[in-house]
């Protein structure tokens, strides 16, 4: 582009330089224009491909989250509630979930320290926690909650403690994975603009 401009300038500065009339100047100008256009074409193509690649990466992460059983259909339901006015609804709900459920977890922690264990209370708290986990589609977390409640029902304190530890692990793993997912999704930007020409 700069080369193009300098050629033009030279023509104007030195009027004796035969420019517009000579075939040589016209050809160079044509070549430069072609290079310019090609450059812009490849740049936009690259940007679109980059966007498609980013979206594909996001899709791969999402697919694996479902494949490996971290998320279930409810997560998709939540995504269906997103629109242009509320593009980050799922991320907002997940953030809310982690904030709100942390107090339930510390409540469970304290209640598990008691002796003897109050299984009814444990079950009640876990029921609430399971409900929220189910609402965001946290499949593995929800499964551990079910196991925990079963141990409560059979008054198995050791079982409760073990499954609680396992649940906390799944809870933490999911958090990390979702953080990565949302970050990548945000970076990739809205799908429509990348893949569909306006």
């Amino acid at each position, binding site marked *: 582009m700069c080369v193009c401009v300098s050629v033009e300038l030279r023509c104007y500065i030195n009027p004796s330089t035969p420019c517009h009339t000579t075939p040589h100047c016209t050809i160079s100008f044509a070549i430069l224009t072609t290079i310019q256009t090609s450059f812009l074409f490849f740049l936009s193509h690259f940007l679109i491909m980059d966007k498609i690649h980013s979206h594909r990466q996001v899709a791969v992460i999402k697919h694996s989250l479902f494949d490996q059983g971290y998320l279930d259909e409810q997560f998709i*339901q939540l995504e269906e509630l997103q629109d242009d006015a509320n593009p980050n609804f799922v991320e907002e709900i997940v953030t809310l979930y982690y904030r709100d459920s942390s107090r339930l977890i510390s409540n469970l922690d304290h209640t598990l320290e008691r002796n003897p264990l109050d299984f009814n209370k444990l079950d009640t708290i876990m029921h609430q926690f399971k409900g*929220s986990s189910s*609402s965001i589609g946290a499949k593995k977390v929800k499964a551990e909650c079910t196991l925990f409640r079963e141990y409560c029902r059979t008054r198995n304190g050791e079982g409760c403690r073990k499954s609680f530890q396992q649940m906390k692990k799944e809870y933490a793993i999911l958090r990390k994975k979702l953080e990565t997912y949302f970050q990548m999704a945000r970076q990739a930007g809205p799908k429509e603009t990348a893949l569909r020409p306006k």
Partner: protein
Amino acid sequence: MAITGEIFRQNLTELLEESPSGSPELHVLAVDDSLVDRHVIERLLKVSSCKVTVVESGRRALQYLGLDGETGSLGLDSTKVNLIMTDYSMPGMTGYELLKKIKQESSMFREIPVVIMSSENVLTRIDRCLEEGAEEFLLKPIKLSDVRRLKDFIMKGKVKEVEKKSLKRVRSIDCSPPLSATYSPISLPCDPSPSLLSPLSSKKARL
């Protein structure tokens, strides 16, 4: 025909609130003690073009409706509720208890359809709620299709109610030609639903 259409529209807007766009909107009161679930149900309902009021307890729900005995009904048109969706397990007053309180009302509040939501699939619980007058028992997590189905069902019920009212009003006006049974179709903000699922059959299908 034009007169009956106008009366029909008047009656419908009496029963439903007008949205900012001017079309009649369903006002839903949602009751849930879970913060996450409150946000989700609110979004579900908004996406389905309903006006939503969300409260965190049965007590608050009764307060909102003006049924808690302390504040009388303020008679405000803005609190006209067309549907109540309540969670079953809540501390203090359960959804079942809230349902009972509403159905025991002697006023028009008894007419408001109440839907119970629960994450637990307990047959005795479902039966008890339906016996007490719940319109439907929904298993959590609630889906968009559940809300759509509910909305269609409520709107159909409203349309039938309005048809009856319009018939009465037109008869009293005493139009000269005999009244035909069909009315000009009025566009309602809901998807046309071909079938009306009975609550039990829909729940049994899920079990």
